[in-house]
Every structure is written in C-alpha cells, then in structure tokens.
C-alpha cells in the first residue's frame, strides 16, 4: 500500500501520526483514505471544490504531482504545507 506522509502542521486530525499506509490508486484517493479514518484531514489539503489549497504542495516519491497522479504500492505521497514563521 502507498504511504501518506503527514506534515507536522496537519497532524491534528491524525492525532500526531506522522505516516499512514492507505489503500488508494491516486494521490486524491490516498488523501481521502486518510480522511476516512481521521476526519478533517482532507479539508486541510483540498478546498470545497476539491482543488489543493494554494499553500499545499503534493509530492509522490519526492516529485511534484497533481491530485490525480497514479500511485502504487510502496509509493510515498507527501503533503507539504507552506508554513514558516514570520
């Protein structure tokens, strides 16, 4: 199964979990699979229209990827929230 890496700012819904192995064949399906067990997670990634928030970047195995990018077993889906201090 692919693994979704959860960035620290988004670990509220996952109760602090850093990574989750989920069933999914696209980035979006993986994010939604996390949300199924940890409600509120997907809302941090996608807006109401299902588009990634502007401050979110998605990566598959380190490469920038759109939500519909295919993922396979062993792939790492990384969610990165653009956040820095001030």
């Amino acid at each position, binding site marked *: 199964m692919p693994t979704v890496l*959860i960035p*620290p*700012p*988004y*670990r*509220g*819904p*996952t*109760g*602090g*979990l850093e990574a989750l192995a989920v069933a999914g064949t696209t980035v979006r399906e993986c994010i939604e699979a996390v949300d199924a067990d940890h409600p509120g997670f997907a809302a*941090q990634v996608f807006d109401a229209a299902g588009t990634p*928030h*502007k*401050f*979110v*970047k998605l*990566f598959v195995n*380190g*490469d*920038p990827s759109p939500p519909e990018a295919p993922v396979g077993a062993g792939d790492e889906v990384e969610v*990165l*929230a*653009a*956040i*820095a*201090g*001030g």
Partner: protein
Amino acid sequence: MFDDRLIRVDMTNLSASVEPFPETWKLLGGRALSARILLEECDPQCDPLGPDNVLVMAPGVLSGTAAPTSGRISIGGKSPLTGGIKEANAGGNPGQDLMKLGYRAVVVKGQPADPDQRYALEVRKDGVTVVPADDCKGLWNYALIERLAGRYSATASFISIGPAGEMKLSGASVACTDQDQDRRPARHAARGGLGAVMGSKGLKFVMVDPEKTPVRRPADSKAFFGLCKSYTKEFREGPKANVFKYGTSAVVPVANMLNTFPYKNRTEGQSPDAQTLDGARIVESFESRGGGMHNCMTGCVVQCSNIVHDADGNYKTSALEFETLTLLGSSCGIASWEDVADLDRLCDELGLDTIETGAALAIYMDSGEMEFGDAEGAKRILGEIAEGTELGKAIGNGAVAIGKRQKHARVPVAKGQALPAWDPRPLKATGVTYCTSPMGADHTAGLIVNPGLSPDQFAQASQESQLINAACDSSGFCQFLQPTMPEIAEFYSHFYGEAVPKEAVAEIGWQCLLDEWKFNEGAGFTAADDALPACLTEEGIGPDHSLKFDVPADVVAQAKAERFPEREELWTTKATG
C-alpha cells in the same frame, strides 16, 4: 589565522577601543556570545535603561563568510520590556560587514552625562570612534539613513534607532540596513525593547564600512566553498524549493485554518479577513505596482523578503511579514493589507516592534477606547508616539503598559512580552516555549507548528526546538534557511579546519539557554513566571472555543528542568522561526 577582535564602547567617557577576541570563544557568536557576555559583564539586577546595562551587537559565527544566508546579527541586553535577558536578531548587512573586518562583537556600556546628546559609533578598517550625532537627533529611520548615505561611503551599512528608541520606549527596535543599493532600514531586531537600551546610551547609529574587504577566508577553503556551493544548489534546485518563495505573508491562510491567526485581541483564532490579509494579495500587487521578492542580506538564497509598493508604484515598506499582518492587521480587526503596510512603515520609521505595537493597539481597542478595525485611528496613534503624548508612550511601551493604563485584563503576554501570531492554544508545545524561554513570548525561540503532539511530547519538543533555534541564532544562519545542527557543524568544521561534532553545536545551544536562564534567575525570575495569563488558559478559541492553553505547570517545567536525553530526531530537526 583569524585576527578576530572585539569592540568596546564606553558611552560615559565617549570612547571606543578594540581588544583581541578570546580564542576559546571562537564558536560563540550571535545569541550565544551575547548571552555569555551579558552573564559575565552585566548585573542582572541593573536598571535596563541605566548605565550598568550592557548592549551587545554580535554577528553570528558564519556572518561575513560565503556560507549562504548566514549574515544575521544579534542584539542583546537586559530588556526593559521583560526585565530579563533579551536577544533579537536581524538580517541586512551590518553583521556581515562587522565580521569582514574581524569584529566579533560590539559591547556598549555606560551612559553619557547629558541624556539630550546623541552620538554615533564609526567602525572602519583602521579603527573605531565615537562621534557626536546631534544633527540626527529625532530623525525617523528612513530620513536618518538618507542623511547618512550622503555622509558616508557607498560601502557602509548602518545600525540605528528611531524616535521610539530615543524616547526609551519598551517596544523600541534596532534597525539594520538591508543589502539593496538604497540601504533601507527595514531589517529590525525588534523584540524586547533593545532600541530603548541603545537610546538610553545616547547611541543613535553605528556605521560600519568594510570598504572592499572580501568575505572571511576559511581555514579549509576547498571544503568550505564546496559545501557552500552544494548546500546552495540543493536549496535552490530541490523539489520543494519553490514552496516558500513568497515569504511568510503567504502563511496567512494555513495559519487561519489552524486557528493561529488571532482576531480582535485573540478572542478568536480565525479571522474573517484572512482573504484580504493573505500575502497572495501582496504578490498580486507586484504585477501592477512593482515591488517583489528579494534577499535582505548579501548571499541569501531564501529571498523571503517582499518589497511592497503603493498604488502609485512607489516604495512603501519591506518586509510585510506574517507576524505584522497578524498583529497590526487581524488582531486589530484591520482587514486591508495596505493599511497594515502603512502601519508597518510607520513602525519601521519610528523604530518599533510591529508585534508589540500591534498587540498594544489591539488591547487598546479591546478596552473600548477605539473601534476594532479603525486603521486611521491606529495610524494616528502611531503618530502620537512620535509626538510623545501620554497615550502614544503607553502604546509604545507595549502590551502590559497599555493594559495597565486601560485597566484591561485581556493582555496576552509571557514575561511581559506580547505573544506573536502563533497561538499557544492550538500549538501547545509552542506555548511551553513561551512559558519557559528566557525570551518570553517569542516564536523564534522555539516554534512547533504541530497541533497533533500528545501532552507527553510538549516539553521535549519545546526544549529541542529552543535548543536548535539557539544554535541557529548563534551561527549567523537565518532560521528560514532551516539548517539542522549537523549542517551547522559541517560549516563550522570546514571554516575552522577542524572537526566540530554536531554534539558541540548542540552544547552551544544548550549552554546558551543555561546562561540566559541563569541571568534571568539573577534578575529575579522564578518558576511562577513560567506561565501564561488567564486570557489564554481560561478563554478558548477554535471549535466551541474549546482550545485553551491547559498544559500543567509540572509539564511546562520539564522543558527547562534538565536536558532530555539525545534522540535521533534531534539531528534532523530544522531550525524554525
């Protein structure tokens, strides 16, 4: 091979001298060096605005070298705001210029007999001199630098105070000029009122002229320059390089989502104005107005600083940061980023911390004296600071001062210093930092943006973040470069041509904290001061107002009781501020 020196300035006798920098201190720079000097040479019981306080200006260890984004300078002293030790650091070029000349620190003591006189310190290749500067008395920062630019060489940089520092207001900042040709005084060591300490010593500005002096030469040039090149390449070309390209103001929407974009004096964690205050609006303005992103200091690869223009395309301010948009914007109920830009410029001109000033304005509004959202009223009050009215001074003295004046209870501070944007109620480990940091409420002391931590993780997360940030603030690296301690150790090793283990860098960070806690203990701080006020422990934000700072005191205490055993994650933790 390093002919490093230390500048001593005696403002009582109006003299300056140079002495050798102790070899044993070579890995101490910035915050750690400031802490060591203050612990050894400053009476923690002294009046922060009296002659016995010591003002330290200390560039980081790597400032003035070719290491990327490494030119930060720390300003230190006993804070008139907190009553404890304080360090605030800034970018710009003065830190690098001092270090190019081999000056590891400027230590200012004493006080002139006549408090109405103004002086300047001139630092050149061939020596250091205290000179009269009465003609600069009362000048706002931008006008001051404009005058100095005509007086000194084009290669000079400046450290200055505005009227707020001259008036010894507790929210006063110390300004550094940035690397652009215009040398704008836009980089501020803002927190803790160190501008007031500089003002109390009659020191209006420091001029540093390195002329054409090259960067500091490392002991192992091949390894050091190779590391600089590979580190820069990795930062610039990595897959995540563009994520932070619009600087901190772009954080507004995610901070709002996480309930850490405080609204109306922190009575809410989210703001209905997040859209209009989003840094994306600033970025959109670049196309029609000009401005854009730039580096505040030579050799910076992060380039997070924005230059903001007005509707006519003229320069307005730089940089308009997330913290400023929050404290002068959302927390005051001010919805327009352009109004916040005006307020930011006024703060930079007067030499004021935008966080402390924004918090003070929000408290004033919350007390009922002025409507939330009254941007013109806020600008008028900043004008009153320059005029020295009683209200202006109260705002300029910060959150606690205006809270007392208004007899208003909701004063969100730690150790007398206003909270930055990052709220301790959703981000409880950051709250532990605010409680235990020698700096008071300062996100750059140890920011942990992780609302998923469990209570048993708060103290260790805070301590580790405080440790890495102290190490970073001693190195000269900007926290936005997000270096790890092994990376800092590698730069040190190649620069000095000797193995500096990562454990040594961690020890520098920890010893810095120990020095600072010891100073504060001497100043009279006790465990009772390691707490947040009732407005943060009893008043909730977020869903059903359920988010409160509810970390027990015994858990908070663990963050400074003793050092946690090292764990592997410590070495991959990045500095974050």
